[in-house]
């Protein structure tokens, strides 16, 4: 089926070569980082994780969100998702690919990354994170490919696919829970040391991932003959709405605990992020942008009349995605390091090479996504009108 990615319109190839160009620039920049070390990033002794790990965390959520399509379709037989579910699975593949790359570019000694498997360490959450992420990537490639292949041949997927699909549901929850556990079990990092971290991660994932999927589905419909279905998009819109409400609620719970207890360790990171601490306020504009966009998206989503208008839904999804990207892909990580273990403030801001590498990892993700979607859309265009159940 992969051959379908090798034939396409001029627009398709322009997009592919544009992405390859971005990847190329990023690769050259990465070689510089590989040679000179992570010193070329904005990371420091005090803020030792930054943009790379933030993107990783955010994208694990995007990957996990495929389950929001898989559950209604496979467990509740919600037929309207029959066409779009493959887009969710392939989005997960692309997102996990980016996660792995972000971890790779964050390593000080990337050539030793296999040490994690050569010296398996069950007491390390990071070991488990690599296990569940690798497994999830495999599951989604196999499931997506097998169901699409069956569609192409006009048959039912093989019997062994069903158990894998069921397995992928708790597995999706596990990848984001384990990722939250990376942070939520560290003594002394008060901002992260919260039992609600995994729940908050899942809520933000189930809002941000499907929001991205709506945007992608609208793009696919605009540029191809493949229609994921108006009702399917509206149904995902409802999922996004509930998940975003839960996410904002969980964030407010965190803020209440910090603000009402007034325990310095708990309040300081919030003060730093939203108001600035000891005269340092670099993240304040970003965090308020995130808050305002979250409110905008909720207003647009909560009223059904607004949500039913697809342009408004698209606007809501874009606001929501950017809001969560700032909150989780940046603020959440930096807030854990500021103030540092000595109650001193060291600020962080990504450097140009770091930003270029980050953008190019996203370009790899879009490249993978474009190729997979091209295959899926081509197959679906061929079999258009043939409804299949599986």
């Amino acid at each position, binding site marked *: 089926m992969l051959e379908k990615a090798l034939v396409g319109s001029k627009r398709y190839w322009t997009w592919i070569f544009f992405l390859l160009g971005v990847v190329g620039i990023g690769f050259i920049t990465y070689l510089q980082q590989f040679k000179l070390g992570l010193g070329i990033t904005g990371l420091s*002794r005090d803020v030792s994780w930054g943009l790379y790990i933030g993107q990783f965390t955010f994208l694990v959520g995007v990957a996990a969100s495929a389950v929001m399509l898989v559950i209604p379709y496979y467990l509740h037989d919600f037929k309207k998702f029959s066409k779009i579910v493959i887009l969710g699975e392939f989005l997960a593949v692309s997102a996990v690919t980016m996660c792995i790359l972000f971890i790779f570019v964050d390593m*000080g000694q990337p050539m030793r990354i296999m*040490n994690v498997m050569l010296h398996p360490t069950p007491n390390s959450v990071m070991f488990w994170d690599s296990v569940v992420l690798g497994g999830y990537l495999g599951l989604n490639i196999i499931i997506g490919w097998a169901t699409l292949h069956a569609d192409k041949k006009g048959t039912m997927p093989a019997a062994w696919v069903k158990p894998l699909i069921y397995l992928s549901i708790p597995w999706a929850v596990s990848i984001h829970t384990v990722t939250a556990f990376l942070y939520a079990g560290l003594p002394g990092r008060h901002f992260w040391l919260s039992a609600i971290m995994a729940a908050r991660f899942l809520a933000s994932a189930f809002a941000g991932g499907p929001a991205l999927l709506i945007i992608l589905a609208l793009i696919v419909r605009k540029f191809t003959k493949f229609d994921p279905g108006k009702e399917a998009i509206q149904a995902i819109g409802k999922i996004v709405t509930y998940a975003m409400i839960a996410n904002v609620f969980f964030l407010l719970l965190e803020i209440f605990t910090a603000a009402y207890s007034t325990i310095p360790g708990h309040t300081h990171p919030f003060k730093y992020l939203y108001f600035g601490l000891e005269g340092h306020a670099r993240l304040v504009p970003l965090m308020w942008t995130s808050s305002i966009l979250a409110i905008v998206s909720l207003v647009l989503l909560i009223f059904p009349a607004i949500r039913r208008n697809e342009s408004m839904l698209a606007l809501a999804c874009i606001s929501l995605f950017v809001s969560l990207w700032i909150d989780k892909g940046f603020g959440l990580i930096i807030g854990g390091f500021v103030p540092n*273990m000595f109650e001193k403030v060291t600020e962080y801001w990504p450097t140009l090479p770091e930003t270029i590498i980050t953008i190019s990892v996203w370009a790899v993700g879009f490249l993978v996504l474009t190729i997979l979607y091209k295959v899926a859309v081509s197959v679906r265009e061929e079999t258009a009108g043939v409804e299949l159940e599986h």
Partner: protein
Amino acid sequence: MSMDRRQFLKIAGLSTIGIGAGWILSRPGEFLEASQFLQTKEFLKAKQWAMVVDMRKFKTEEDYKKVIDACHKIHNVPDFGNPKDEIKWIWSDTFEHAFPGQESEFMPEQMKHKPFVLLCNHCENPPCVRVCPTKATFKRKDGITMQDPHRCIGCRYCMAACPFGARSFNYRDPKPAIKEPNPEYPTRMIGVVEKCTFCEERLAKGQMPACVEASNGALAFGDISDPNSEVRKILNANYTIRRKAELGTRPSVYYILDIPTSVVSGGESNA
């Protein structure tokens, strides 16, 4: 028994997974330590090495400098001259930064701003060891929290996990930043984490850690599990505190505070 290609691949695949899983599970949890191979007569043994920092004996800037320099010189600790890439094994910081939350507005000025000697606490329950995904950071049988720079993948999870800010990362090539390289001790490479090792290389030769030797009695070192050790005698006779003990990491570095005598004797100076 005949077998088609499909069946063969199935069995071969499952066997490979089985053997792989078996190999991983069969690996023993306890490894021999490198130090066990070079034990000599002088080799100093302990169940848990510990240190007592007597802040009463740190008076001048020179008292701090000689301790820090002794360590950083022999261990080839680079000096980049900027806080972003900074690498330090032992350093000093004020009471309010060393013991955040313990300071009060009205404590004696000389104590609030007095620099404390800080280093890795070699915790009995170290979070850095718990989080390391490759066992590059590990607990030795003598209680030293040690790291293997050749196994470290540079993920910096240990830096996020350490509540004491004891760990530094080689953001740049350290070699050009070492002023007087000590050929007796290895330098580190780019992209790995490092910290104080309680001078395990000196303990193996029967010597005290370099900072202890240079401290003129301000730093005491010994086996905390031995009731007759020097550190235990000091802990018996003095009120000591540890950094962030409430986190349950069980730090092995204790501090005797320098309480101004005028405060102890109720206003009268008997110094």
